[in-house]
């Protein structure tokens, strides 16, 4: 089936974020979403290491090592920014003040469980960072991921086999094949890209899916996307 590129997916997610939202883009691929936020709207980015009003990467030669994002990349601060310490920053997340957070994933279960911090592989060095705080730390938790692993297995699952990051925390999953909402009845297909259908997605995932796509495709970024072979993986796999 056809897929959209990582950048197309980032644009698709960006289109769902209303002006005035407070948004945390995690690390890795989700940070691409920032590139597609409309220039004429104000959407305020949070980075959990202590900044609201994060701006884009600095110009070459203007790197400031004291000003970084959660991925430890150089960033800038916009007019209207504010700095704060870690307890305040994570209180902001835990207290439910962020509107949207976009995360990568290894697996998402049909009850909204998220696994994105550890493969549980023996000998792997564990590292969690802010993953568990982010997973429970926004009004809407969006996952950005390929639908399938490199081995072709579905990342949408009945129950996660990888160690959990959070329980019942995911609101919506944006994949290269389709957008899924987590509902009390399981995954609902909100929008299928290209030639994907609810039936074909059900076959790929091995899950019973709800059809919630009626009318939702029109006007979306993805509606015009044809076959693309780029993959959208979560950076936590690296």
């Amino acid at each position, binding site marked *: 089936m056809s897929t959209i590129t990582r950048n197309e997916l980032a644009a698709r997610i960006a289109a769902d974020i209303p002006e005035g939202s407070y948004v945390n883009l995690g*690390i*890795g*691929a989700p940070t691409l979403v920032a590139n597609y936020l409309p220039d004429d709207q104000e959407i305020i980015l949070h*980075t*959990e*290491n*202590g*900044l609201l009003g994060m701006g884009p990467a*600095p110009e*070459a*030669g*203007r*790197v*400031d*090592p*004291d*000003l*970084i994002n959660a*991925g*430890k*990349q*150089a960033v800038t*601060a916009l007019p209207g920014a504010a*700095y*704060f*310490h*870690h*307890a305040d*920053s*994570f*209180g902001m*997340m*835990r207290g439910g003040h962020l509107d949207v957070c976009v995360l990568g994933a290894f697996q998402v279960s049909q009850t909204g*469980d998220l696994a994105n911090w*550890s493969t549980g592989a023996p*000998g792997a*060095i*564990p*590292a*969690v*960072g*802010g*993953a*568990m*705080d982010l997973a*429970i*730390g926004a009004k809407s938790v969006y996952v950005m991921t390929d639908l399938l692993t*490199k081995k072709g297995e579905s990342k949408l699952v009945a129950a996660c086999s990888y*160690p*959990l*990051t*959070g*329980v019942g925390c995911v609101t919506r999953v944006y994949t290269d094949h389709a957008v899924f909402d987590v509902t009390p009845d399981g995954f609902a297909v909100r929008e299928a890209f290209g030639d994907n259908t609810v039936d074909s997605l059900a076959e790929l995932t091995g899950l019973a899916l709800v059809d919630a796509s009626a009318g939702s495709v029109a006007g979306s970024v993805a509606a015009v996307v044809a076959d693309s072979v780029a*993959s959208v*993986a979560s*950076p936590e796999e*690296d």
Partner: protein
Amino acid sequence: MIDKTVADVAAAVAGIADGATIMIGGFGRAGQPVELIDALIEQGAGDLTIVSNNAGNGDVGLAALLAKRRVRKIICSFPRQVDSWVFDGLYRAGEIELELVPQGNLAERIRAAGAGIGAFFSPTGVGTQLAEGKEHREIDGRRYVLEYPITADYALVSARQADRWGNLVYRETARNFGPVMASAASTTIVQVDEVVPLGALDPETVVTPGIFVDRIVAVGERAWLRKGAFVGGVDLEGDPIDPAKEAAR
């Protein structure tokens, strides 16, 4: 007259004993008190328990302390980074103990120690391996895990400016763990770019009041600030998306 400034970094870390628990500020390299860590290496204390968000970057600072085998245990949220090879090697060899704590719980547990909170119920980590064996409770329809304070004998913190009473201001995201660690340790040791006269800091803008600070040492402006507000060419390691890896997918 109260004067918390000390002459040099050796005086700043004097008296730290083997077996001490030491909080070290910083998120990656931002706010990492490298000069104090170097002094601690020189000073020689070992068998340490370190509380820090990361487990060292490259071969300097906390990584260098680890490389000297001075650290028995580390309590942190994100040891594995692109440049954490020192920790990685020790961990794989079974030569360092790791307590992994979600980053927000780490910050809040440190804050709790400073604020006299006996324990608190956090929603972070519920249902995960990192909450296994811990007390859970449902409150108002949501599940929480009980987390306890993390205290320390010392905190090593980096800030932008201090006055002689120990009032501190920080710089940008280098603030990170400094304020909570300063409040949580029995003895808080701070390196600053510069010490300013009492009264030079606006009382509205002090981030860490001096009550939390015991020793201050000026280490001069950090390397990347010497030529102005920005420099190029600094080896700022991130956790980047590796373009080569990405292309190969």
